[in-house]
């Protein structure tokens, strides 16, 4: 077994998963256990109704309001596009399912590999489009920081190395697989410390906002 | 005599669908090698195991070359078959092991494949063997003659 591959899927993966779990729990608790400023206005709705309305808001706020679509629609579509692509490739590709089965003990049916390959290529195209958009729009470029670019890099590297491994292109297979797994390891380690944490924050964050506003009677 | 008793030799024609690209390429190569053989006497061979062929292409190639006048079999560590195809000078050599698995397969462009030619070393053994046989026979006759006489 190639030493790099052995390392990537052995000690490095264990370290990556450990750092990931450590980091995610840290950041989740560090945020959710913070104090909330007490609201001074009387509650308009009961807690349960506020919770339900808040949860609905998380859904309705997931697409720009009509007024803003012209400006932000393209970016939103790109984002949804590659997120969907990533979910499909990560969760419905047979070798990945085998990986998750090792973690949680159960697997699930996979999509045909050829279909996954097509979706992965489309996802890569969208990721590239997203980068182009980020550097070509002046305001966006000014707002972008290391986190933005580095997170993008790790995700894209994972998709690229995954495609190369599946296509057996660019070197001996064990090397390609090693680089793909190392990309995943790097991604797992970086995950809790950058913007990728939005994966855990986004829905709780929207629901909490929705709940808070609903209590005040302001949600819709 | 029935019609079916009349031996018929089919000149190599391809299967109904025509030849695959791989088989055609090989045939072109064979043609070039044959021309060189005639011109300079230089022999050539193609290792059929080294060529990636689609399933059925090998059969199409064999059918295209057809069967010629010579069909020789020799047994040495498994059966080997040497036959001239319908194209003179193009031989199909197939080596099998004792389990009848093919271990090598060649198309040879030559006047006669080397494997059919008897090696001088083997001839020397043949000479020794035959000499021994004749000597034994002579000795045997002498003995019998001696016995008959007395």
């Amino acid at each position, binding site marked *: 077994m190639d030493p790099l591959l052995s390392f990537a*899927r052995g000690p490095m993966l*264990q370290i990556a998963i450990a750092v990931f779990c450590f980091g995610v729990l840290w950041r989740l608790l560090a945020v959710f256990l913070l104090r909330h400023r007490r609201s001074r206005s009387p509650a308009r709705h009961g807690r349960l109704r506020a919770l339900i309305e808040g949860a609905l808001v998380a859904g309705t706020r997931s697409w720009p309001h009509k007024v803003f679509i012209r400006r932000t629609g393209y970016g939103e579509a790109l984002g949804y596009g590659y997120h969907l692509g990533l979910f499909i490739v990560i969760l419905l590709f047979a070798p990945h399912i*085998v990986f998750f089965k090792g973690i949680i003990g159960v697997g699930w049916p996979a999509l045909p590999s050829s279909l996954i390959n097509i979706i992965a290529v489309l996802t890569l195209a969208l990721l590239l489009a997203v980068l182009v958009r980020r550097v070509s729009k002046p305001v966006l470029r000014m707002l972008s920081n290391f986190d933005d670019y580095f997170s993008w890099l790790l995700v894209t590297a994972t998709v690229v190395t995954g495609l190369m491994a599946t296509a057996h292109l660019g070197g001996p297979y064990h090397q390609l697989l090693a680089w793909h797994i190392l990309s995943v390891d790097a991604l797992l380690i970086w995950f809790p410390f950058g913007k990728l944490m939005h994966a855990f924050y986004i829905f709780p964050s929207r629901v909490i906002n929705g709940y808070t506003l609903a209590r005040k009677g302001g949600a819709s | 005599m029935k019609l079916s008793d009349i031996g018929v030799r089919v000149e190599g024609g391809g299967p109904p669908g025509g030849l695959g690209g791989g088989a055609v390429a090989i045939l072109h190569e064979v043609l070039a090698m044959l021309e060189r053989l005639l011109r300079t006497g230089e022999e050539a*061979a193609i290792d059929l195991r080294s060529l990636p062929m689609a399933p059925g292409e090998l059969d199409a190639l064999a059918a295209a070359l057809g069967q010629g006048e010579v069909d020789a079999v020799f047994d040495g560590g498994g059966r080997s078959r040497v036959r001239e195809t319908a194209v003179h000078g193009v031989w199909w050599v197939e080596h099998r092991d004792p389990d009848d698995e093919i271990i090598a397969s060649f198309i040879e462009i030559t006047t006669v494949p080397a494997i059919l030619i008897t090696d001088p070393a083997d001839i020397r053994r043949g000479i020794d063997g035959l000499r021994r046989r004749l000597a034994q026979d002579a000795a045997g006759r002498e003995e019998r003659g001696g016995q008959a006489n007395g």
Partner: protein
Amino acid sequence: MAEPDETQTVGEVLAAQGISRRSFLKFCAATASMLAMPPLMGRAMAKQLASMRRPSVIYLSFQECTGCLESLTRSFSPTLETLIFNVISLDYDDTLMAAAGEAAEKAKDEAMRKNRGRYLLIVDGAVPMGNGGVYHTAAGRSAEQILREAAKGAAAVVSVGTCAAFGGLPLADPNPTGAVPVSRLVTDKPVVNVSGCPPIPAVITGTLVHYYTQGKLPDLDGHGRPLVFYGNSIHDRCYRRPFYDKGQFAKTFDDEGARNGWCLWELGCKGPVTYNACATLKWNDGTSFPIESGHPCLGCSEPGFWDGGSFYSPLATGKWGRAGEMRPKEVAAIAGPAAGVGALVGAGAAAWARGRRRHSEQDSGGEED
């Protein structure tokens, strides 16, 4: 073993065995084909081999199971591989030779002296270095000493089997005997690694024949293995590849997929990272190879394959712990404590942040929910 008349050529030995030059030519033609040499090379090979004196070969066995030698010598019917024993003069092999003890050692020393600089040294088994090399001793000397001495006068060294080539099973974790591969100790002579557990007999034969007819070892890959046999991975030549490409995998050893001959990736097949000729040359005179018989490839021709994780753990999963299997329990053992520590740190961070706020704000504190 060594013929009484050492001046006999290979051809003369063949004749004495009743093997015709024609049969020998067939053997050479098949071997040339297997070595991917030009098609007419067989003739030159036969001519060259038949006219040379039988080359001397010394075969040393160290930490091995004898599987490699068995692979070469056991056959159900006389095969081409046994013909190689007509070509070489096997002057020492402690498993095959009739002599034993001092007589055998003397024969070896004699052969090494007479053929100094010209004999081929074939080694199977790893060499233990722990505790002064005491874990393999023969005739009062350690394996390391025997190997170094034999290598001094050898023209080249052939490490047969993964143990000799890469350390194999003896070197696997925890390597209690301090086993090392042959190439670690022999650094001043050409060494070729014919790895595999065991190697395919034809690969051993082919390498030897190449050496004798070309006068040098074949082109080698990064691990010192003949490229012609180890240049492709099992995966590259696997007949089940279409199923892999379509994503049709057998999930257990007797499910519908397994019965239909689907890809064995999910059952732990190491074919994609293993380089050997199993998928083309196959085993037992081309009968079959592990995948064709329904078992995933173990990766037995690769360095460290014993420590590469469970044989039944797919390449897609991790290699966790000694057993090398990634299962929920093993993952939880690491993820749990890590998450616990993270939670503590997170709670601590939140508490600290709260404490700071409390000092700087006037309101009575306490939080919403």
